[in-house]
């Protein structure tokens, strides 16, 4: 089943098309990667999916239902969660409360405070932040803040998780840990759509990759297909890489 699909998704900022007539889909249970040079429109596409922006024109459907035009909180309650490129944790709130809010409000079903607290605790355990539950979010390292964002997103019980450059700014050890976390999340049955620049991660984890450039989709396929695609190599991986191959 296509859990997420977009038809002709377009977004203009002034005269510039940040995203231009992009058709895309994600199957339930997949891990799909979204790559492209800086400014290709990847985060804008995520913003269009999550409801932060409205496509014009274009339609986006989640589990068959049209979600274009819905507010972010409504889309979240339907089962779509995301993390942000520039980490947006609740800085002056403790780690536990960060996740607790999401557990309380992110689910379409009514949740009691006790249940939400239990959820939050379990998720902190899942991402490895239990020891820091009382620490203020702003006092965490970047890697831990990213983990917190993930826990917070998971607390809304999503079926689809949008990860926006989860691994940006992390060192190799942290990247490996992040990759492992993503795999574990996927193992729980959650579909993942991830923007990434760290090629190692994308190539190893993703079932399929979509490539954007100047707002347009220029390629789509398995990691092997993408890695060997001349178009992609030229545009994204650099002329020198092409010259070497």
């Amino acid at each position: 089943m296509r859990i997420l699909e977009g038809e002709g998704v377009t977004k203009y900022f002034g005269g510039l098309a940040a995203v231009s007539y992009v058709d895309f889909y994600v199957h339930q249970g997949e891990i799909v990667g979204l790559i492209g040079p800086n400014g290709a429109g990847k985060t804008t596409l995520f913003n269009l999916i999550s409801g932060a922006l409205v496509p014009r024109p274009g339609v986006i459907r989640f589990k068959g239902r049209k979600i274009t035009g819905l507010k972010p909180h409504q889309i979240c309650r339907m089962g779509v969660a995301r993390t942000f490129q520039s980490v947006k944790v609740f800085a002056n709130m403790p780690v536990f409360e960060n996740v607790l809010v999401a557990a309380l409000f992110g689910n379409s079903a009514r949740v009691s405070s006790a249940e939400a607290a239990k959820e939050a605790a379990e998720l902190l355990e899942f991402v490895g932040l239990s020891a820091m539950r009382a620490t203020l979010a702003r006092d965490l390292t970047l890697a831990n803040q990213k983990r917190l964002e993930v826990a917070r997103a998971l607390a809304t019980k999503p079926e689809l998780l949008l990860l926006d450059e989860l691994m940006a700014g992390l060192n190799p050890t942290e990247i490996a840990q992040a990759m492992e976390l993503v795999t574990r999340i996927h193992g729980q049955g959650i579909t993942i759509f991830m923007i990434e620049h760290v090629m190692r991660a994308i190539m190893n984890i993703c079932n399929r990759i979509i490539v954007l450039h100047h707002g347009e989709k220029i390629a789509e396929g398995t990691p092997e297909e993408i890695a060997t695609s001349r178009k992609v190599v030229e545009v994204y991986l650099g002329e020198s890489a092409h010259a070497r191959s």
Partner: protein
Amino acid sequence: MKHIKVTPQRLLLPGLVGCLLVLLATLSLYASPYTIVLITSILMYVVLTVSWVIFSGPTGYISLAPAAFFGVGIYTSAILGRTLPLLVVIAVGGFASFCLALLIGALTLRLRGIYFAIFTFGLVELIKHFLLWWEINMTGTRGRFVIVVNNTTIYHVMLGIFVALVLTAYGIRRSKFGLALQSIGENEEAAAHIGVNVTLVKVITFAISAIFTGAAGGIMATRWTYIDPYIAFNPLFSFMPVLMAIFGGMGQFYGPFLGAVIFAYLEELLITRFPYYYMLLFGIVLVVVILFLPDGLAGLIQKWRKGGQARQHANP
């Protein structure tokens, strides 16, 4: 079975608050008429300030609308005071303010914070001019007389409003709703993406905060007995809560209380003989606090307490 140790420290704060409440409730029995009037004024400013903080504190949206709600309460008293019992009139004043706040909130809380601030800033002037025009051209009145209520009753009503407000403020702060409010203030976009209906929460909180301001206006009108649009819709009643809250410090629950009490008392001392110097002091304090003491008095107290604790722990 879990036993919570009842230590002297744990009882200290509730005990103090309890004593204070008893003292306040029985004030009319032992205090002079002047003191009763003074405490009423102080309570009024506390109500204005704390209700302002309920919304503007956690969300960071600076509202300059309190004077509008206050004025609505005043006019409700003036119009209905003779036909309905006092408490009903106060309640209607609170309700009318609630409705006005819902309207304003629905219109402007979808926009950036600066637009909201600008909008509420001009609101008081708007209502004042409109009411002036209306009273002159439509109803033919210029100013109205309000029913007279004795000072002790006024005090008790204000005390009641104050208690209701404190309970509400505390309740919100500790509830799910308060958590959502806080998350909106921290990062509105992220809050929206984790399922918080940001606009709804903002509008409702704003409307709730307006109730108490309106009710306070309703009862204070009876003290002034004669009101007109200039008296009722005075921008000062928007500016003072803001200053008092910032001066007191919004990081702690008691901050706004502190700021309001101090400046309300200062006003009593200075307003009759040195009104301009009082307001001048106001302005200077505000600028100084914003520049050097952004967490207000409460922030200063917290730092001092932490320093004290550190010193305690350092000496074995």
